[in-house]
């Protein structure tokens, strides 16, 4: 009963033409761009990889095979579980978490400094300098780190000429380059949400706490961090989701022996041409990372509405 009333009110407020355009654009976005493709991918992940001739015939039925493959591996394999892929999955999730926490630690002081400073030319300059790397292509950013971390790279060159090491150290295969690259790629998505919230914190609160003898640690724990919680949650969510779903950095900076989960998805699609299997892997990644984010949001009592502020 209420629904029609809401719609009629909407059209009354916006007029028939404008209301119609708004409705059309929003429903096009939500239904055609967001919901249907996801559902279509979900449906796809439950199907067999069939040649075109067999599609739509009886063989084209639903199956759990694609998911079974991720957990147990191909039929008749020697291992009980698909150890390789599962390890890649676990490693991706854990490493993405580690990158998120490291970014938080690295960004918090700067966000506090920028947020509580009184503005001025120096701060503007710092903000401009922050934005510049973000406008550079993700591939190029990863590539810049490859120049630094590669075998014949700058870091090895400097360390060898200083006599710290006598053989080039393989940063790429040790995954140091990958973690540095992932942290580098999304660091600003951690910084800016925190900066925005801390900026809105009344400076008098900190002064008052300090006057009353609160220690530096206590001020942050009791005043700044509770106030910045939405920003911290927003930043951590974005960094975690983006690092877990990153493809460019692992492709450019990843070692030869270690893969990122998205690279497996990529291989199923572009090398093996088994789209159904790839879709199943993508669904697993999506569901797992959303579940982790929602779980942490529940633990730290953050609302979805805080994200993206």
């Amino acid at each position, binding site marked *: 009963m209420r629904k029609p009333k809401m719609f009629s009110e909407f059209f009354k407020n916006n007029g028939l033409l404008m209301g119609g355009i708004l409705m059309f654009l929003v429903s096009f976005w939500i239904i055609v761009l967001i919901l249907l493709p996801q559902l279509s991918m979900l449906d796809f992940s439950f199907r067999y990889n069939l040649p075109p001739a067999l599609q739509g015939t009886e063989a084209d039925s639903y199956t759990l095979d694609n998911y079974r493959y991720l957990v147990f591996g191909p039929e008749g394999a020697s291992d009980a579980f698909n150890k390789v892929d599962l390890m890649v999955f676990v490693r991706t999730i854990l490493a993405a978490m580690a990158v998120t926490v490291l970014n938080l630690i690295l960004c918090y002081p700067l966000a506090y400094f920028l947020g509580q400073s009184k503005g001025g030319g120096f701060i503007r300059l710092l903000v401009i300098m922050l934005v510049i790397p973000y406008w550079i292509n993700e591939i190029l950013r990863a590539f810049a780190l490859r*120049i630094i971390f590669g075998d014949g790279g700058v870091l090895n060159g400097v360390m060898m000429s200083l*006599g710290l090491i006598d*053989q*080039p150290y393989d940063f790429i295969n040790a995954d140091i380059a990958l973690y540095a690259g992932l942290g580098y790629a999304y*660091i600003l998505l951690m910084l800016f949400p925190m900066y925005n919230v801390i900026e809105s914190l009344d400076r008098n609160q900190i002064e008052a706490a300090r006057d009353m003898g609160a220690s530096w640690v206590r001020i942050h724990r009791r005043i700044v961090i509770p106030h910045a919680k939405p920003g911290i949650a927003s930043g951590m969510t974005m960094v975690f989701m983006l690092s877990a779903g990153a493809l460019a950095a692992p492709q450019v900076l990843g070692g030869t022996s270690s893969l990122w989960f998205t690279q497996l998805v990529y291989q199923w699609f572009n090398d093996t041409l088994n789209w159904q299997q790839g879709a199943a892997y993508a669904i697993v990644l999506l569901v797992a990372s959303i579940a982790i984010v929602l779980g942490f949001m529940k633990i730290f009592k953050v609302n979805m509405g805080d994200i993206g502020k």
Partner: protein
Amino acid sequence: MRSNILFGRVALAVYLVIFFGYLLGPLLVMGLTAFNSAPFPSITPWQCYTYEWFGALFQDERILNGIKHSFIVGIGTVILSVSIGLAASLVLTQVWPRWRSTYYTIIIAPILIPGVVLGISTLVFWRRVSEVFGENAAFLNNGLFLTIIGQSTFIASYCMLVFVARLQRFDTGLTEAALDLGATHTQAFRKIMLPFMRPAIASAAVLAFLASFENYNTTTFTFGAYPTLTIELSQMVRYGINPSISALAVIIVALTVFAALAAEVYRRRSKIKSGDIKPGKGLPAWMFGNVATILLVALSFVVIAMVYSAQAYSPAQCKIDYKAERQIENQTRIEALQKARREARQNAAPLESITSEPPSQGAGAFGSVFAPTNLEDAAGTGSEESGTPEAPASPFGSVFAPNNLEDAVGAGKN
């Protein structure tokens, strides 16, 4: 107390240097590699200062095509995602309160969905749609169409956030007044809402274009026969490259810095006009003592100077010199190896007859050249180890300088 403050300041300065070093250092290094004539992007063996990679960049057919596709996709994405984002933000202000958080969750979700997943779902969905429509809807499988659709899915969310921030300051009384005075809804939108939203539309458009231009994760599944610049770059990075990619990065960074400084100058200027700050004294009026303006002018001078010098400057002589130097270096190295081999032979002579010397003996001779002491000398520890029994090895130490090792590595890469 005072020393405490001082310590805090020093710690802050160190931290800022580390943070910005991490952020800008890699870009700086990459920028330098664009001017080194070494065929693989690197700065340590520095060979010759050169502009050749910029030339190579503008002759690379694939990069130019990629830029073209990127622009087409970017413009399409800007149009689609800005209009969707604007509509979504307007609906958000009016949606029934109880639905509000659900609605917000749905429209914010594309930011959080991994780009890979968006690309795959777009590809799978539109292939099915085109199967339903058959031949006469071939554009549904077109790479440009798919890329625009796939990117807009999440870029619209970014735009929506920009608009929501602006709409919070909108006075709905204005629209109501216009409607009361007899304007139609369309007129009210065009005359009141659009002018109010114009700055937000501009920044959303810039944001959308940049996000589209640099997107990789989604595009890599949807591009089809139209690789964008990012796709071309990723393929170059993965399958062998020369520094022309760094040259491209230099151009992008320069454009970015220009745009950022120009925006800053513009902001400053409008503030002066509105009387918020007073122009400085002692400088020409157009500079009004603004750091950003001075930097902008300085940067323009540097660029102009570089373009001019690029026409006159030729690294050919330097390259010849470098080649000759390398030849001499190689010559000494070969001589050193031969000498070492002779010595090894002389040592081995009492044990075996020289004529029937097996090849493995030769390898052994090499082994002594690559003895640990050589490497230590090369690393420049400065320790006086020439007193060891392998005294003849120390002269080779300078031959096996760090550069040589890197050259070997670089050669291995090529």
